[in-house]
């Protein structure tokens, strides 16, 4: 199966940030969160974005995900400049090209595991039978076969996060943005989840950009980016399990 991510690989970076700045205004005080970020993420990458709290990881992920707009600079996803998009087009872009995994799982509590995944496919207008088939397959890929009808309240944290990963991947986006995906998980579950994401990246070719300061996640990265005070301070290619810990 040829994924959009793989198709884009030859065309250039899947994510491109140029001179991205973000300044928050708190009353009369201006707080810079990003100070001129220049970054390219290649298609198929499994990259981590690390740094201490307040370094700007989440802000940068929000800019790349089209959830927030930069004060200055440009963010391009698969060749499309997000600055030119209105709110509705950004929503469409997120639906078609970006998958999200959040720290707090963020599943829709009134939907079952399979329905949470189907919801994305339903937004994409995919027929019911195809939706179900793909949702069941996605759950199988993340090791949750047989748990299709369980609601989030009846799943463990690790299982919920696996559902979130399946949801992020099911529409075959160009990139999955994960913000601290292991922060709420115990050690073993976190390790399993990271291994799962790395395996899915390898299998599908979908790009992963993970904001984290979890060494277990960084250990699986093929590329590691360090941020401090809104700036990229290190950007290294590395072999999985050989990264800086």
């Amino acid at each position, binding site marked *: 199966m040829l994924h959009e991510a793989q198709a884009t690989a030859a065309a250039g970076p899947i994510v491109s940030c140029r001179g991205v700045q973000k300044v928050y205004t708190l009353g009369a005080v201006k707080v810079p969160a990003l100070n001129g970020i220049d970054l390219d993420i290649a298609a198929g990458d499994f990259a981590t974005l690390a740094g201490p709290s307040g370094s700007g990881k989440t802000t940068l992920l929000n800019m790349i995900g089209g*959830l927030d707009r930069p004060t200055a600079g440009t963010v391009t996803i698969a060749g499309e400049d997000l600055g030119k998009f209105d709110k509705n087009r950004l929503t469409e872009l*997120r639906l078609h090209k970006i998958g999200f995994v959040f720290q707090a799982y963020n599943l*829709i509590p*009134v*939907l079952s595991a399979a329905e949470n995944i189907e919801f*994305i496919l339903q937004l994409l207008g995919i027929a019911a039978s195809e939706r179900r088939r793909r949702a069941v397959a996605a759950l199988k890929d993340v090791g949750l076969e047989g748990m299709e009808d369980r609601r989030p309240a009846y799943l463990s944290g690790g299982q919920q996060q696996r559902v979130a990963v399946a949801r992020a991947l099911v529409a075959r986006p160009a990139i999955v943005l994960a913000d601290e995906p292991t922060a709420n998980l115990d050690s073993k579950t976190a390790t399993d989840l990271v291994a799962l994401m790395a395996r899915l990246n390898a299998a599908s070719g979908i790009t992963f950009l993970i904001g984290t300061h979890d060494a277990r996640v960084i250990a699986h990265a093929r590329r590691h980016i360090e941020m401090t005070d809104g700036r990229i301070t290190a950007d290294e290619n590395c072999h999985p399990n050989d990264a800086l810990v």
Partner: protein
Amino acid sequence: MIAALRLLGPLAWRNVWRNPRRTIITVVVVAVGLYSILVFAALLNAWAQSSRETTLNLLTGSGQIHAQGYLDDPTVSRRMPAPDAKLQAALATPAISAWVERVRVPAVIESEYKALPVTLLGVDPARERRVSTIPGQVAEGSYLSGSTDAGIVLGRHLADRLKTRVGKRVIVMAQKANGSLAEQAYRVVGLFAGNMNAEDAYAFTGLSTAQTMLGIGASISEISFDVPDEARLGSVIAALSRVAPGLDVSPWTKLSPLAAAVDSFMRAFVYIWLWIMFVFMAIGIVNTQLMAVFERLREFGLLQALGMRPRLILLQVCLESAMLIGIGVVIGMAVSAATVAAFHGGIDLGFLAQGAEYFGAGHVLYPQLAPIQFAELSLLIWGLGIGVALWPARKAAKSSPVEAMSHAS
């Protein structure tokens, strides 16, 4: 749109039951509010109907036909000929249940003690019973026996004021067709009891007797007719006007403007009450929906992050409101219908009957609500409820994903 409803319908329904306690409170608020509106409307309708029937069944009927100018100058000079074959055929339409001819002129009635102004009515007793309730309200003596009956039936109160009674004689004076004064003695054959104004105002004798006394031949003053189906009154009036273009065909709303005003007021009051109740309901609906939206702000941010357009979020919250209010509306409708059905046999006002009659209503009220009004009021509440819920829905749709997701975290 259908695809959107397929997407959002099940989600909205589950969200409605996410906080059962809050849902039940909102449903109860809407159901009780609508119940009060529908039952109040049924009672007001009953009151209006009773008031109208009391007035119209006295003498007015659903409409009347007069000579031109009679309503402004109701004297013997404004008389009209007995209905010709064409008019009689028009009056025989199935829409008209009964009609009657009358002579109706101002007169003075005199006993040995007192002279008082009255309206003298010459009636055909047998036909009059089909149009007016007065023949059935005779409290002493009897009603007239025929069109040539030379007796007179008075209201009980009028008889008291004249200090006369059944079996005694009174003198009636009225202007004749030729302008001279007619004066005739009548024996009081019966006294009717009912509406006090009617008791004071009317004196009844046979139609032929009155015609002879006034020297008007077969001429009459009015034709009164009944149209049981109010909705058909307009077309009946139009048809009669076409058949008798030289005559004045009037509906009861023109003949009895006070009854018409009471009727209109009752109808308007239903909507005044609806708005009062709706304000209370709206406060409850907006309050609960705002709470529901604020509690789920993070979720709305998530939905936007996942690719759900803001207008779909707006639609989802509206759909939830529609379902929530819809449940309350359905329950309110069911309980109201059961209540109205339970009092189908009428509500006897008992000790309030005299007061009710003073205000023009009968002592038994029959609550009723036309299906169309039942549906209209319910749909109005449903629609208005969804309308006020747009405010919280807009709040949900306008939230930015980042702000919404950081709001609750």
